[in-house]
């Protein structure tokens, strides 16, 4: 399995298991994960997330297990320099945006999106890091609207856009007919799916319904779904079992577990 989203480092809001690269790798390997796209966990809260990139990416890039990914705040004047450094020094195939925690609308990432599309770099947008209902009262951060990410994908068809942290079906209301929502629990697969741009990929660590993967397959193309654990904030076993115990066909599980990520990031499955 290839894990599309793990954070390396320290989380500010509560204890987590050790998440230095070696500990993180050991934890994930124990769950059957054979590779992971990692980002610096400190980037959620640090004022310049590139300082977190500089702290964590050298070790992640030197690893055979991790594919490094950078976190960029496109509202900082120095973002182009940070972006270039991450590309040149650590060859990141994915740049992550955290608009909620860095307090901007995705429109502010237009220049970065254009640049990434030109360079063949994927852009990931994190809708959330935690359940908003239990946020620390001094750091209550609303979720980023899914529609904003879909709009980015629509606007830049050459850009591969990943949405991380999609959780509830209500976030999809603009893209899914009401009758499809009503039929999600039906054993039959609906004839139509969510109307989304082809260059939009969905990571599943927060997506949870009765038989989560089967529900996701009624909404999204199988070749656009990505397995992720959201470790060390979530127990990795939860998302491993979400795929492994699913009723979905084995070829679909294989695609979601690793092959889709391989296609997207250009890494060996």
């Amino acid at each position, binding site marked *: 399995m290839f894990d599309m989203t793990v954070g390396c480092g320290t989380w500010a809001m509560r204890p987590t298991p050790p998440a230095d690269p070696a500990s993180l790798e050991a934890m994930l390997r124990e769950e059957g994960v054979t590779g992971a796209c990692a980002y610096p966990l400190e980037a959620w809260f640090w004022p310049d997330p590139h300082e977190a990139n500089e702290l964590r990416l050298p070790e992640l890039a030197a690893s055979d297990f991790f594919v490094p990914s950078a976190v960029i705040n496109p509202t900082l004047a120095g973002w182009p320099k940070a972006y270039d450094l991450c590309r040149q020094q650590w060859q990141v195939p994915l740049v992550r945006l955290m608009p909620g925690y860095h307090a901007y609308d995705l429109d502010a990432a237009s220049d970065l999106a254009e640049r990434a599309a030109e360079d063949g770099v994927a852009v990931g947008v994190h809708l959330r890091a935690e359940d908003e209902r239990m946020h620390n009262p001094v750091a*209550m951060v609303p979720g980023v609207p899914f529609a904003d990410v879909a709009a980015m994908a629509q606007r830049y068809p050459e850009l591969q856009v990943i949405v991380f942290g999609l959780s509830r079906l209500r976030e999809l209301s603009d893209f899914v007919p009401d009758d499809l929502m009503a039929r999600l629990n039906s054993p039959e697969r609906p004839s139509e799916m969510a109307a989304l741009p082809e260059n939009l990929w969905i990571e599943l660590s927060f997506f949870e319904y009765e038989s989560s993967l089967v529900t996701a397959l009624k909404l999204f193309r199988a070749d656009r779904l990505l397995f992720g654990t959201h470790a060390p904030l979530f127990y990795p076993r939860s998302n491993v079992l979400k795929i492994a115990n699913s009723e979905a066909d084995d070829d679909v599980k294989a695609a979601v577990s690793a092959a889709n990520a391989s296609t997207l990031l250009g890494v060996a499955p």
Partner: protein
Amino acid sequence: MTAIDIHVHHPWTDPNDRPGYRLERLKSLAGQSGIERILALTGGKGTSTEELQRRNDCTLRLVEEAPDFYSGAMYLSPNHPPEFIREEARRCAAAGMVAIKQGIEVNARDARIDPIAEAAVELGIPVLFHAWYKMVEKYPEESDGSDIAHLARRHPDTRFIMAHLTGVGRRGVQDVEDLPNVSVDTCGGWYDTEMVEYAVRHLGAERVVYGSDYPGRDYAPQVGRVMGARLSTEDRERVLWHNAAALLGL
């Protein structure tokens, strides 16, 4: 490793009309994650006495049809007369129900809950009570850990299961730490690391019990938080099976 899931909702309200009900699929979904038995829960907020009885009958029908898979929890409305609460509790227990569910109809501090707690102790069955500390999306009467603790102190002989460990969080665990008549179930949103270990450390493994909150949640990742927690084999078995079996008298 096998499990009993103590927190599974069913949506049916009429025993003779269960659209989409497929027992084999439900058993299969649970079985894929090692869950051999579930406690089936119904709601009844705002119902008449007749409607509430129909809902409880619906749960009883499930248990009658598949006693190897279902255990049943009755819903009792704190807004119904105490005499009806007592009679309905006795009727459901006599028919085989092994627990009482409480949701967000009335806060746990409210005296209207007392007849339900008294019925539970009379019948020797636990009360599974919804609880959550929320910064947003809080329901008007929704209980939190301190409310459950208030109720448990009022009824020290009643056994309570405070639902949603991750929802009540560390504050909720501490609220009930000194109350041996309160256990906590492991569900409540996503699978935050260290939370199961925290509960076991503070309450003891014998007071932590696995629950999923299916079908709003998925068995596999919910059981994964227990399977993935750093627990001894003995403690994991307690959380997944033995504690629920003891609480439900199985």
